[in-house]
């Protein structure tokens, strides 16, 4: 087994400074200074002379039939150029990432609060908003279906394990929200003995609330009509080509006539994988013949993108007295809301990895995704694995308590390792250092207790709100470990395209990397530069704007871009390098086996050869474009869930230390520690940043972040009441990054972004349980759950 080559610990300032800017260095981000200075242009900063403003009229009802829409008063408003409804959609009137089930503009029924019904373009946003308010929609309001299990006809947990439930579930559903019924996907995992027994059995029911991506830059874009009858769309998004495909279908235009360019993206976390204003702005631009800008405000943003699926879960764990897992049974329900979005793939992840990174001989998992009239849910960092981790890690703690065993010991005893089989029958064929991640956490020193001597309120639960000076405060420590697939799974043709050009500019060899991979803040543009520097031995690397004039890079999601687009850039660079080496050999007149690129030249270590690239290239431009794929995965068996579903797994573990004011139910997370295996840290500073950010987002779900829904309506669509962690909520971290190379991946790297988002929340929950002695089976934990009031 490979050994860790470096273990950066603590804050980024302890990491090495920028080297040559190649792979493994803390290369500086090209967008960093602009962003810190507030000079970076985001989608909402797009501007053109003569542009119009588009706004969206949305349904106030979670479920209603539309009797009629009267746009005449809106159209008559001075300054208004167009008012559009579904009648004005020239192509397919429904779209979707995996299933085309979501109307571009409402057809005869609205299925969630906030569903787009009509569009207005006007010369001023205020005029457009006023006009939108004058559109008269006559609704026949219907009773919404607001619970996933009710939607599927499984209202009680007993029915879940009733063997007839599977066959009759469709007939027992409540009102059908879609023609095929309310079931989006049911995934089954079946291995081993179907009726196992064990010495010790622990059963638990868990619930995870609806989390929002809460990216800081709301949805925005600018559509510009083109002379060829097509449209150019500048938009903040995660996957230009999947947008393009859906836009083409709605507009009935070929891809050549729908050209997309990435606008500045202010965070994504999955929330920009589905379309928002894309088709709407294009429709308005094509209708008016003018550029149209659409830019949501924070409130509209809460209705403008999908959220993390809320989940209800029931788990049963059986183990021997020695703490060896015998079986796990689980029923997992994801509320997909009104439209499918990526629910099928979320169910895929939730089901296949739903018992955590443990070896269990007998597994019986049913994972369901349901339609309801709640807001549509889809991709969010952690993608189906965040929810189940709360359940399976809580179960591991409950089992440890039942066995009177140390919770870390129990986890280590059952941990996966390289060569283990997953419940889906896949043998893990690269390092899986679950035990080491946990043991390293355990070995880290614990933070000192506050409260001895002078009280610093900022260290107390409640902070400067001055609610305790130590009264009622109890400390707790909790551990959690998790794993998640990297890249797209279940047989998806997951690829990326890179075009790499090398030429001499002003005497200096300059590489240009052109991919359509969305930079959403994670730092992919830096990684692209680093790879080109390392592979081509040049310093100056230009990242071409991201657009659809090059082939698809796939989505900036599933922790996949450094792996897949990084792999594509590396491969394209290698082809350029082959050409250079061939040229150099022609120049020296023979084959030199160890020619390589370094310092802007072709060099040999064995012979005294240095051919500057500038001389080799002259005025020539070398360019290579290629599509790159990771090893194929395969669809899983529909009855047993067996198959090689995932190309790679990422592993991380957290230890959380919390102080809880047990009388007031307030929580202060004192420290988060994380260990993660990243295979190879392409940019160590960026890796640490991903771990810190993912940890904060997981902590947020554990203690505060929830979109509150009542009768299908969102009660807190603003940052006043949708709370995300502040600097006083997110503590300092201890981080250890392990680098066990995955032999199947470029540079041995592993996707980084999601794993720390998965293990952090369950560790916080475990720590709160340890501090309070309460079972706490729902997140976010609210003060009321702790005080019992």
């Amino acid at each position, binding site marked *: 087994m490979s050994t860790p080559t470096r273990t950066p610990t603590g804050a980024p300032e302890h990491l090495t400074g920028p080297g040559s800017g190649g792979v493994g260095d803390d290369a500086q981000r090209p967008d960093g200074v602009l962003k810190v200075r507030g000079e970076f242009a985001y989608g909402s900063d797009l501007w053109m002379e003569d542009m119009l403003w588009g706004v969206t009229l949305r349904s106030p009802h979670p479920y209603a039939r539309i009797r009629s829409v009267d746009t005449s008063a809106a159209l008559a408003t001075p300054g208004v150029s167009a008012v559009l409804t579904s009648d004005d959609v020239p192509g397919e009137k429904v779209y979707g990432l995996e299933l085309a089930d979501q109307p571009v503009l409402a057809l005869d029924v609205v299925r969630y609060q906030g569903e787009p019904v009509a569009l207005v373009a006007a010369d001023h946003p205020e005029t457009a908003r006023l006009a939108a308010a004058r559109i008269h929609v006559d609704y026949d309001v219907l009773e919404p279906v607001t619970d996933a299990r009710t939607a599927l006809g499984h209202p009680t947990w007993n029915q879940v394990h009733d063997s007839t439930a599977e066959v009759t579930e469709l007939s027992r559903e409540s009102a059908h929200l879609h023609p095929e019924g309310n079931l989006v996907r049911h995934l089954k995992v079946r291995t081993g003995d179907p009726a196992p027994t064990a010495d010790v059995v622990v059963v638990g029911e868990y619930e995870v609330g609806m989390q929002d991506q809460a990216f800081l830059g709301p949805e925005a874009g600018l559509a510009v009509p083109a002379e060829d009858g097509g449209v150019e769309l500048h938009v903040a998004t995660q996957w230009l080509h999947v947008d393009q495909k859906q836009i083409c279908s709605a507009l009935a235009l070929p891809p050549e006539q729908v050209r997309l360019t990435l606008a500045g993206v202010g965070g994504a976390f999955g929330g920009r994988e589905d379309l928002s204003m894309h088709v709407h702005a294009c429709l308005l631009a094509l209708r008016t013949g003018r550029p149209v800008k659409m830019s949501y405000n924070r409130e509209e943003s809460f209705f403008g993108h999908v959220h993390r699926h809320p989940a209800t879960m029931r788990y049963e764990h059986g183990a021997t007295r020695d703490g060896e897992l015998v079986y796990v049974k689980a029923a997992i329900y994801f509320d997909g809301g009104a439209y499918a979005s990526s629910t099928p793939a979320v169910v895929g992840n939730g089901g296949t990895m739903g018992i955590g990174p443990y070896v269990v001989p007998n597994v019986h998992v049913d994972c369901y995704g349901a339609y309801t009239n709640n807001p549509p849910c889809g991709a969010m960092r952690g993608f189906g694995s965040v929810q189940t981790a709360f359940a399976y890690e809580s179960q591991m703690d409950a089992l440890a308590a039942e066995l009177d065993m140390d919770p870390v010991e129990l986890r280590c005893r059952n941990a996966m390792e390289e060569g283990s089989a997953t419940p889906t029958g896949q043998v893990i064929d690269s390092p899986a250092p679950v035990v080491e991640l946990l043991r390293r956490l355990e070995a880290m020193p614990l933070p000192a207790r506050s409260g001895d001597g002078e009280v610093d309120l900022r260290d107390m639960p409640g902070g400067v709100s001055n609610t305790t000076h130590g009264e009622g405060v109890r400390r707790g420590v909790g551990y959690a470990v998790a794993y998640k697939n990297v890249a797209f799974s279940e047989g998806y043709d997951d690829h990326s395209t890179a075009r790499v050009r090398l030429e001499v500019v002003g005497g200096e060899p300059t590489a240009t990397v052109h991919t359509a991979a969305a930079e959403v803040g994670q730092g992919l543009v830096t990684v692209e530069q680093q790879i080109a520097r390392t592979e081509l031995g040049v310093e100056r690397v230009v990242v071409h704007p991201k657009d659809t004039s090059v082939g698809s890079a796939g989505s900036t999601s599933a922790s996949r871009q450094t792996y897949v687009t990084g792999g594509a850039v590396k491969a394209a660079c290698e082809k350029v390098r082959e050409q250079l080496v061939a040229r150099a050999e022609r120049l020296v007149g023979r084959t030199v086996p160890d020619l390589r690129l370094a310092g802007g030249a072709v060099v040999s270590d064995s012979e005294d050869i240095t051919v500057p690239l500038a001389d080799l290239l002259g005025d020539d431009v070398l360019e290579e474009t290629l599509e790159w794929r990771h090893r194929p995965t395969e669809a899983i068996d529909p009855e047993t869930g067996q198959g090689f579903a995932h190309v790679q797994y990422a592993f991380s573990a957290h230890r959380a230390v919390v102080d809880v004011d047990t009388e007031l*139910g*307030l929580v202060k997370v004192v420290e988060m520690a994380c260990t993660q295996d990243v295979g190879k840290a392409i940019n160590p500073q960026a890796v640490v940043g991903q771990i810190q950010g993912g940890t904060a987002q997981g902590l947020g779900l554990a*203690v505060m972040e929830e979109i509150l829904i009542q009768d299908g309506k969102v*009660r807190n669509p603003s940052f006043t009441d949708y709370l995300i962690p502040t600097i006083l*909520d997110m503590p300092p971290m201890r981080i250890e990054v392990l680098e066990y190379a995955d032999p199947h991946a470029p540079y041995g790297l592993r996707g980084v972004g999601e794993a720390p988002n998965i293990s952090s929340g369950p560790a916080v929950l475990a720590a709160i349980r340890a501090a309070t002695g309460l079972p706490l089976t729902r997140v976010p934990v609210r*003060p009321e759950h702790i005080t019992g009031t």
Partner: protein
Amino acid sequence: MDFLQPVTWAEALEAKAAHPDAVPIAGGTDVMVGLNFGHLRPALLLDLTRIADLRDWQVADGAVRLGAGVSYARVISELGDRLPGLAMASRTIGSPQIRNRGTVAGNLATASPAGDAHPALLAAGSEVEVASARGTRRIPIDDFYTGVKRTAMDDDELIAAVHVAPPSGPQQYSKIGTRNAMVIAVAAFGLALHPDRRAVGTGIGSAAPTPRRAPAAEEFLAGELDSSGLWESRAELPEATIARFGELVAAAAAPIDDVRGSAPYRVHALSVMARRALSWAWADYRSANQEA
């Protein structure tokens, strides 16, 4: 939307008299939120930030006259000793940016039941100085809040200042929020001990339609301190007295369930905050004696 920017107080009062529907704007931390959400569409904004006088505070007859334009950040840095309860409340408000812009007068005029200045002002005992082209009057803080986000001010009036009596004893302020900073109160409690008047002041936030005091709790505690000679002896407070005080504070609340918290939690939290605030204030009172 029109925008007026008077540079003197007299001009501001004239403008308000001429346009009673004009919306004054100070720090803008409530007004701009209203504009952005479309809840507020005033025909006229009256900017008060150019009036230099409003940004002053003075001490007159021992009491602080806090000009309407003084920011929370300045209350914290300049008036921590003279207005301890209000400074503690100010520290809990928003973020550094909000504390740099936001004013106590803005908090008063918004009159949200969750406004953090209110419990501190109620507990300390204060008067709001309001003015119009017709003249100036002082409204006792107890009469200022008349309903949910409603005040005793007339349409043509502006807040000139707040007058707060000097502290004769310790003050405390506690606020519950579901995160550790930048949060609207789920429930808040202000306490002031007034040994000079042998009285106790309280203020409850976010737990009734308006900010309010807990008179029964104040009378109970003042009575106990009096009858047991505790003002003079500065002896330890009996646990039962502290507990009873907490119960009476909680009983004065009339909260609702909302997205921020349940009514029963608010009642519970108030009793805990009241007990703790009293024990801290009393400890301060006792140690002040040792120092003396």
